[in-house]
């Protein structure tokens, strides 16, 4: 069978097995987080943080400390910088976000260009899942464990924070704490995603699965499961496709994610375009009948 062959062939290579497993894990983690990003309206924030971690990653390379630590410092630092500039000037938030993350990203580019020997720019920008080292795999597993456990423990509080922070505050929940938890997880997930799809595309991992699931469900637990399923599917299929067409792995993963989103947008049973247009037709027909 060609299909069996299609799935079996890449598995002859150890690096492909690793790549598929790691990208699936990253898919789960980023997708889980993407539900909160979508609901909180943090897509732009995700974009900002994922770009802003770049100098942190480079500095961590140089200092030979875990990338996650450097990313974490710069990810959270960028958001503090955004908050500070916003509160001290008259500039609007989206402008501040655009300004800060490009500034951090540019700093990262400069740093990389000056220390070429130890860091490969293309790996940071576009990911290097096929050549991922065992140390990086360990790091991804640790990040994933931290993120998933934190999300599981704080799920109810984070949902309430996204949904109704006024009520959350009025019953004494620590909103600032939840804000920084979500932000820290975002920085960590950006590092995990950086390995698979690279800094440029990591925001897709942190937004698209949540957006797809949002169109398919009206319950948070369903949304979470759908997002994770679509994330894993995209990661695995994307890695396979990239093997067969010999194309960019990160690119393939995000293209599959985007196609899933488009399918959901059109065919979603309740919130899809087809159903919506049918509903509005029914409405206009019933209007006409009256």
């Amino acid at each position, binding site marked *: 069978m060609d299909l069996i062959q299609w799935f079996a062939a890449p598995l002859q290579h150890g690096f492909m097995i690793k790549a598929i497993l790691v990208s699936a894990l990253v898919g789960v983690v980023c997708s889980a987080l993407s539900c909160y990003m979508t609901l909180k309206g943090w897509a732009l924030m995700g974009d900002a943080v994922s770009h802003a971690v770049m100098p942190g990653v480079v500095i961590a390379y140089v200092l030979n400390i875990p990338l996650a630590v450097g990313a974490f410092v710069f990810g959270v630092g960028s958001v503090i910088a955004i908050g500070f500039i916003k509160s001290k000037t008259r500039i609007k938030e989206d402008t501040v976000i655009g300004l800060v993350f490009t500034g951090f990203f540019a700093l990262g580019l400069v740093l990389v260009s000056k220390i070429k020997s130890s860091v490969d720019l293309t790996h940071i920008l576009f990911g290097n899942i096929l050549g991922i080292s065992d140390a990086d795999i360990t790091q991804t597993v640790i990040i994933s464990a931290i993120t998933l456990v934190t999300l599981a423990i704080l799920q109810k509080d984070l949902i309430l924070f996204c949904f109704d922070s006024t009520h959350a505050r009025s019953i004494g929940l620590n909103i600032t704490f939840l804000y920084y938890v979500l932000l820290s997880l975002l920085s960590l997930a950006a590092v995990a995603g950086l390995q698979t799809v690279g800094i440029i595309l990591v925001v897709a991992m942190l937004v698209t699965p949540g957006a797809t699931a949002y169109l398919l469900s009206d319950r948070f637990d*369903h949304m979470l499961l759908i997002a994770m399923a679509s994330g894993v599917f995209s990661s695995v299929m994307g890695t396979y496709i990239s093997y067969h067409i010999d194309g960019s792995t990160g690119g393939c993963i995000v293209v599959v994610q985007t196609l899933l989103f488009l399918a959901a947008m059109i065919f979603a049973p309740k919130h899809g375009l087809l159903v919506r247009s049918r509903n509005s037709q029914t409405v206009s027909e019933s209007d006409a009948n009256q």
Partner: protein
Amino acid sequence: MNSVSIDIENVTVTYHSKVALHQAALQLKAGTICGLVGMNGAGKSTLFKAIMGFVKPVSGKILINGLTIRQAQKSNLVAYVPQSEEVDWNFPVSVYDVVMMGRYGYMNLLRVPRSCDKKAVRDSLERVEMWQMRDRPIGELSGGQKKRTFFARALAQQGTVLLLDEPFAGVDIKTEKMMITLLVELSQTERTILISTHDLASITTFCDQVVLINRSILAYGKTSEVFTEENLSRTFGGAVGDFSSAKRQVN
């Protein structure tokens, strides 16, 4: 009995060095239903925020049942029913989920509901006749049902102070009547209810106290005594249109 439930002592709140509320003083006894009346920007929501502890007064203090705001929050004393515009109705939560959020303050870190939490949620939903609708996504509810869901959440929270922001905007007559009945029942069990609104007509029917606010508290006390021509004119800044319509509503 009849102890002071909300005690606001000379509270001044400023935003970016502009005074939003000046030297506000107000004591509400347990079991009062009090209307908070003023124009937009008069400081109604600032007062609410101060009572919920979201803005820190530059001077003065607020006590709820003799406790500081922080202690009151931790004891789930203050329940808030938001304006419908403040809620993201596309959020994937059901009616039941929303009402259960009123119980989080009583639960452990993982927010696993115990049987008393489930019972409180069920009782609250039954009181507002929404139990049958419990599995509906909130986005599929009518205006009145939406309001009743959030009212049920406040009931489930079992606080002693209830803040409602424009509770009757965009709701049907059935919901309005039901909520007024429930509010009167709650006040009889020593709950203190503060309702922010510019719908003067409904206030006179069931509020026993009124606070008139315009950057500071102009008058407060029994509805019949406070709703004078002079007070209303000060509250609405002598704006002729507002004033005459306000007076018409009172009459």
